[in-house]
């Protein structure tokens, strides 16, 4: 599915964000543009520290300011500009129309409150419900995320649950108000592989039932391949490539994306060593001049060291930030 040009659910346009302290200013997000259509699953991939989570947090305006400072751009959600919304309005949106699942299920639940109270919180915050209605809704939610014996477990505490169960409770909280957009920030990173598969399967089922859109943040391309419809690749605070999943796996255009795909283990090719991308992700405080990726790029050209390539649409729905591609276009 290509980018739906008309009426996306969420559209982020040229968003720039920096972390400001008294000594320094670090650009964390540089000219981020992305769009998520209704009923679509989009994946945001990239190495650690490239700005994936910050992107998610900035969409929900959850970053503390200071240090975070929006430098430009717009975030439109269902036609409203979130950067211009009041705190009160944002609280109405959070948990109700956009909600989020965090990376660490072990620490995302308050250890001193019962599961029932915590799941009920979002519900009662955004809806007017009587006690019985809330109770029923909470039990329904817990059953929906397949917590066995939901009614008996309302009074239990997070320490009595395993990581996978806690993540399912986080999902229950996130979907309690039937949000239009669910941001899942590495929902399976802290879990083992079988639980990971269960959680992803659960998210997929829930998505089918409620037709919400999902922005999945991950560094696991295997997860992305089977789960998402479109992939956005980030590197050092910038989007470097964006395409449909099929397209991206078939013809990756950016050398970084190619490097990522080459470093995946392949079933039919039993090489002894996996390929890697040379070097490290640069620190955001000390970005190289020109294209951020050029020190690690195998196709580096003189121009890459001088200026940063613009992001351009190579094909319908496939954009890339690389001089190799723009040269090819000309």
């Amino acid at each position, binding site marked *: 599915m290509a980018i739906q040009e008309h009426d996306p659910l969420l559209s982020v346009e040229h968003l720039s964000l920096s972390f400001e302290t008294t000594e320094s200013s670090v650009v964390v997000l540089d000219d981020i543009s992305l769009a998520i259509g209704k009923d679509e699953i989009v994946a945001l991939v990239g190495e650690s520290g490239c700005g994936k989570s910050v992107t998610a947090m900035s969409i929900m305006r*959850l970053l503390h300011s200071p240090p975070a400072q929006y430098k430009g751009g717009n975030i439109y959600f269902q036609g409203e500009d979130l950067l211009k919304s009041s705190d009160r309005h944002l609280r109405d949106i959070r948990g109700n129309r956009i909600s989020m699942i965090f990376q660490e299920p072990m620490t995302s639940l308050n250890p*001193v409150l019962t599961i029932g109270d915590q799941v009920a919180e979002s519900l009662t915050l955004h809806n007017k419900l009587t006690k019985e209605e809330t109770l029923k809704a909470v039990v329904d939610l817990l059953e929906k995320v397949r917590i066995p014996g939901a009614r008996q477990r309302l009074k239990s505490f997070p320490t009595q649950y395993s990581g996978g169960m806690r993540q399912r409770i986080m999902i229950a909280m996130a979907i309690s108000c039937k949000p239009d957009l669910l941001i899942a920030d590495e929902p399976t990173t802290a879990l083992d592989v079988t639980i990971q598969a269960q959680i992803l399967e659960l998210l997929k089922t829930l998505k089918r039932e409620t037709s919400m859109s999902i922005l999945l943040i991950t560094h696991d391309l295997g997860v992305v391949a089977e789960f998402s419809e479109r992939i956005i690749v980030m590197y050092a605070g910038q989007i470097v490539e964006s395409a449909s999943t099929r397209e991206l796996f078939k013809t990756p255009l950016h050398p970084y994306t190619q490097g990522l795909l080459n470093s995946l283990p392949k079933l039919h090719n039993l090489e002894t060593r996996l390929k890697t991308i040379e070097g490290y992700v640069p620190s955001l405080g000390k970005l190289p001049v020109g294209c951020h990726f050029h020190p690690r790029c195998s196709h580096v050209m003189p121009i890459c060291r001088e200026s940063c390539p613009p992001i351009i649409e190579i094909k319908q729905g496939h954009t890339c930030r690389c001089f190799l591609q723009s040269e090819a276009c000309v």
Partner: protein
Amino acid sequence: MKNIKNHLRQWRKNRSLFIGSILFLMLATTVLLVPYIIEMDAFTLQYEKILNAPSKSHPLGTDEFGRDVLSRIIIGGRVSLSIGMQVMIGTTFFGVLIALLAGYFDKVDMVVMRFMDIMMAFPSLLLAIALVATFRDSTFGVSIALTVVYTPRTVRIVRSQVLVLKGEQYVEASRSIGVAPLKIIFSHILPGVLPVLIVQETFLFAYAILGEAGISFVGVGVQPPAPSWGNILGDARVLLREAPWMILYPGLGIMCTVLSLNLIGDGLREALDPKRQKGKARTI
């Protein structure tokens, strides 16, 4: 029922909590209930019995006006304990409120904590004496003065815990579902502060009793003829050679109370802080 039994066993296993709470309960029941059972006269002046040594009719002797020392210690204990209690409630209320707001809102923090620093820098007894002087009703005045003096201690300790909890992911998660700041503070952060607070306030109870004794000893606290442990000691100071019983027993009263409260505090800390539990692996 089984649960209660389990709790009782835990309580008995925790030595300092067990001994401290038994001691404190004994003192408190004596001070509170005995005057209802045995008639106590702490005020009648009997000039024929001035400075009598302990005897059958006056087990702890009499003071310079012939008043029964035992009665005065018990009635005075009520005053001391009630001041301790009032200070504990006062510092809990104001301390927690200030600490929660200061810990959560950075802008409030800057102003409030500098003010607390100034108050901490002031000699606390001196400040309390100055404050007591401005209140007429001496017992309540002492409570207010000590509350003002001890609130910064509670604020400091609770605030540091708030700062820790503020960074927890579950607080971030509750922001992500649209919970308003004040609700986050009271329903997500406050419960996490409670263990630290309970321990701190137990110690504060002890501090307040010592503080009251100090102020009244100097003579500006609880005013005669009303007895308190502090002013009995103060009166007895000049008679130390003639009537050592006058200074010994109220001193013992203060010591036992403070000791019992400190033991309770230590015991509670051990019971409530998972990191300090002996012989138990910490479960996350």
